[in-house]
């Protein structure tokens, strides 16, 4: 079955893509055992380490954010599938330090289970590891229990603020406090226009009619809260932002970070048009936008759509958000 993608053997996707990435960023990242990504120049051991894990197929996430000011290590699974627990443990072991390690887990059951097993192994070996679960998807309702809400692109700014805190020398309690505060104050919604091809199976990962869109999509083709007629960019922005602002209880005078994360085929042109609407609505409501992030950070192959993530920011979070970082796919100079 010929798939319209630039690939070789669908069975080797993750291995080959990780090799390519490691070759491209040879001086900056180091690939271990094929699927563990570390900084080429490790962070001093007196600073807290940040580790994450997740499936492949979402490039540049997650490994594209390994580097100064963000992650120390990323553990890669298979396409859209969590990495195995022993590998997560291996990464935790590799960055082991007195200062402690924070493992950032996105709420998807495979990731959570692998992490739990790895954390248990780590604790048995006396490693100083803490963990945080992102679950900022509000598709099932902002009030739904955390366990029912997926972790979406919000992990990326969370790596950024927690990574900056770690880089500044915050101890593990303070790094965790920053991460938890950011985590509590963020919310994400995804919207899809067109499906993507699962690069291992060649199948479309979901279906949508030609005149429909779906708000609340997951990032592996899991459906959202039902399809609806296509809206304009302005209408889409308002529909999503209204729910997000309510979820984080943003009010006049608040500072708000907005991330518009392209799913794959949606152009930056469109994201700019959507951002224009977002910025206007925020200004209308007296909410101050903090330098936003607009681009492709956590993709779903060539799905058309985007995730809108907002986070209510305090001054410390703003400072950490704007602090320098230098990773292959997110840099602040």
């Amino acid at each position, binding site marked *: 079955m010929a798939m319209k993608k630039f690939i070789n053997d669908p069975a080797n996707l*993750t291995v080959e893509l990780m090799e390519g990435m490691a070759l491209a960023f040879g001086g900056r990242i180091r690939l271990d055992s094929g*699927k563990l990504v570390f900084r080429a120049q490790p962070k001093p051991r007196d600073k807290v380490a940040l580790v994450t894990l997740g*499936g492949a197929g979402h490039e540049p996430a997650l490994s594209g954010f390994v580097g100064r000011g963000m992650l120390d290590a990323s553990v*890669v*699974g*298979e*396409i*859209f*599938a*969590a*990495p*195995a*627990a*022993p*590998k997560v443990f291996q990464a935790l072991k590799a960055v082991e330090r007195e200062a402690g390690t924070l493992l950032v887990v996105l709420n*998807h*059951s*495979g990731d959570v*289970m*692998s992490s*739990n*097993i790895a954390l248990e192994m780590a604790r048995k070996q006396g490693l100083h590891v803490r963990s945080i679960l992102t679950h900022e998807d509000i*598709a*099932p309702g902002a009030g739904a229990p955390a*366990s*029912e809400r*997926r972790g979406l692109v919000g992990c990326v700014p969370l790596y950024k603020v927690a990574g900056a805190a770690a880089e500044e020398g915050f101890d593990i309690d303070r790094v965790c406090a920053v991460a938890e505060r950011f985590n509590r104050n963020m919310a994400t919604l995804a919207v899809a226009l067109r499906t993507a091809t*699962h690069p*291992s*199976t060649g*199948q479309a*990962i979901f279906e949508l009619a030609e005149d429909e869109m779906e708000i*609340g999509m*997951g990032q*592996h*083709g*899991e*459906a*959202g*809260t039902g399809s609806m007629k296509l809206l304009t960019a302005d209408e889409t922005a308002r529909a999503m932002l209204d729910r997000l602002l309510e979820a984080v209880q943003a009010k006049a005078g608040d500072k708000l970070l907005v991330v518009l994360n392209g799913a794959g085929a949606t152009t930056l042109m469109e994201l700019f048009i959507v951002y224009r609407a977002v910025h206007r609505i925020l200004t209308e409501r007296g909410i101050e936008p903090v330098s936003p992030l607009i681009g492709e950070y956590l993709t779903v192959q060539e799905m058309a759509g985007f995730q809108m993530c907002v986070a209510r920011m305090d001054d410390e979070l703003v400072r950490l958000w704007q602090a320098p970082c230098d990773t292959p796919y997110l840099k602040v100079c």
Partner: protein
Amino acid sequence: MAAGLCYADLAGMLREAASLLQANRDLLSQLDSATGDGDHGTTMSLVAAAILESLEAVTPTAQALLESAGWSVLSVDGGSASPLVGSFLLGMAEGCPPSSELSGGDLAAALESGLAKFRAQTPAQVGDKTMLDALAPAVEAARVAASQGLPPDRALARAAEAARHGAESTTSLQAKYGRARNLGPRSIGSADPGAVSISLLFRGFHAALAANRTPPLQER
């Protein structure tokens, strides 16, 4: 009382279960496409390959064999299935006596220990449309059979039957865990792929023994 399970029996059970899972790869992916992300067949194939690979290595005891299989499965990059199935096998190893032959009671104890370790990974309960809907009744059937003094093959026949029923029952359930949860009521109408995998696993366990021995007449 019939013969217990020896090392070779257990190896055969694992081998048969793995082949059955591989043979049903497409079915499992299809089921996962309906309610999840469509990769369950791929993942269970990798899980099966990991089981088969662990059978290549020489392990001294049944317990060691289960532990090795459990670790192999746990080491698969396989979404939710690998930690769940891996934990189940590791739990079986933990609950498995070091004896060279397992009685029906030994098997039941191992299965119960496997179930406990599985449950430690997830808050899901029976009725939540997950693997547990097949696994819990299967283990319970084996336990009852053992308490009635039935040998392992008869116990597994009942377990396989219970797993099959359990997997079928998931069709009318609404998913509470895993990716299918996001579908809400739309998850009703299609069987849970994980539960079907568990039913294939027990079918394989039983078939391995049934192929080795005279099939008991009172079971299909």
